[in-house]
């Protein structure tokens, strides 16, 4: 069974990511048995069927607007965001919006071109599980999950920027936050 990082640990995971061929009509896409994560368009098309099936999560691409998914968020056991390339940062905004604006509290997973040195930043915007690219050492990725002890900027994990959290040094003082 493939391994992912969840809650700061490497765990086995049996969710399958369904990536149907673009030319297959949504109504004809075959849903495999077991726990499956379907693309947003498929969910929106067949939500009634998929809800009754249970064990279904939804994945979004960088171009997907998460707003139409909002009404189902409380029932979804897993939402994933796909990174087609590590240089494509749209998934960070999608995750941030799901957490902050749309209040999603369930598991939020980064899938696709997910590299170890991005996990820290992904966690900051609200991801809590990571399907690290299969050719990368997941144990090493786990060790690089927390490369910095503190941050300046606010984000989902800690919306309060450093200047509001710490007494900061003034000129002439030792900068010993």
């Amino acid at each position: 069974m493939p391994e992912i990082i969840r809650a700061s640990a490497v765990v086995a995971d049996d969710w399958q990511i369904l990536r149907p061929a673009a030319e297959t009509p949504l109504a004809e896409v075959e849903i495999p048995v077991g726990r499956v994560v379907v693309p947003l368009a498929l969910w929106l098309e067949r939500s009634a069927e998929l809800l009754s099936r249970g064990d279904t999560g939804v994945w979004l691409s960088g171009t997907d607007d998460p707003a139409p998914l909002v009404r189902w968020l409380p029932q979804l056991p897993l939402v994933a965001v796909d990174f087609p390339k590590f240089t494509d940062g749209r998934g960070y905004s999608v995750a941030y919006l799901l957490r902050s604006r749309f209040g999603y509290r369930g598991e939020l997973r980064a899938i696709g071109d997910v590299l170890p040195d991005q996990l820290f930043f992904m966690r900051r915007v609200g991801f809590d599980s990571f399907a690290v690219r299969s050719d990368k050492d997941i144990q090493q990725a786990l060790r690089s999950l927390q490369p910095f002890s503190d941050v300046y900027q606010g984000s989902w994990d800690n919306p309060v920027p450093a200047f509001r959290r710490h007494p900061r040094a003034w000129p002439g003082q030792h900068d010993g936050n």
Partner: protein
Amino acid sequence: MEDRSATAFHDIGLYLCRAPDGELGLRVLVGGGMGRTPIVGTVIREFLPWQHMMTYVECILRVYNRYGRRDNIYKARIKILVKALGAEEFARQVEEEWALAKDGPGTLTEEELKRVSAYFTAPDYEPRPADEGEFERRIAESRGFARWAGRAMRPHRVPGYRAVVLSLKKTGVAPGDATAEQMEQVADWSERYGFGEIRVSHEQNLILPDVRAGDLFTLWEQARKAGLATPNLGLLTDIIACPGGDFCSLANAKSIPIAEAIQRRFDDLDYLHDIGELNLNISGCMNSCGHHHAGHIGILGVDKDGEEWYQVSIGGADGSAAGHGRSAIGRVIGPSFKAEDMADVVSRLVEIYLENRETGEHFVDTVERLGIAPFKAGVYGTPVRTKKEPSEGVVADA
């Protein structure tokens, strides 16, 4: 209004300003840039109180991150999205996003502003009214000193002080170059005549921001010996140039020899001063490191079948006082020229300006008033050639 940071040529430009009631804030511009798609940024918010700087910029970035182009790295810029959506629509999306982020924890506090401000205190100025007399006497006595001071000196808000710009535009030296020995000397002067501060300008010169008026003459004498007192600041030979094909692997053409040829052509100081304020910028390729789009005269190196050619544009402006604070992209006057013709082409442009200028007009003002047609006609001959790109041998008719 002067803009020395070229805020209109950045992805995001923040221009500090005050509201009528004195409140400090920012005018917010987006979508400026040079390169292969030169665009002057658009104001999307006239006044943003300073507390909201971080949250507002974050919203600009989020809109861009979500909707900006991903398919082509040349188009992955805020300016491309602003152009595609229209500035009004881009602004609307930012404001919509900001309505939800405004007053969040990213909002800056008075306390934090005070703390950071405390790192930018004024040095211990000592007003020395006596210095001014000495300075005036030297100005009256030495024409060379007066000429240098007229270009290199900037007024200071503290009486008895001046800001001094050291020219790195001596003919025969690559624009913006300083040797290790020169830097040692500048460092020494910054301590002896100032408070240990040296600034670098985007015009590729060095600035000593706090020089006592009484020390200006001595500084000039030393700077002259060091080759750092060419009295050409803001003039045609104060050329901004990228390293070009002599050093850069991206370049299509050389920049430095073109700059030198032009500097040699305009070696008469009286003529140079008569021409007046003129920004001439040279880039060796479309990446625009020499800011050619914003030059009153802009020169762009292009490659044609393995040969180096130069495209000339006029009427660009970078927001500085020489262009009365305007920001504009220069317009190409026509087919490119060969390297050996560039000094002639610039001479011809200057002659047309001198023939047509009205009292007090800078080169860029005359271009603005007359358009590029008379310059084009003067450079290429009349009637203006209509052929879009030159065949071999079409060169300046100067």
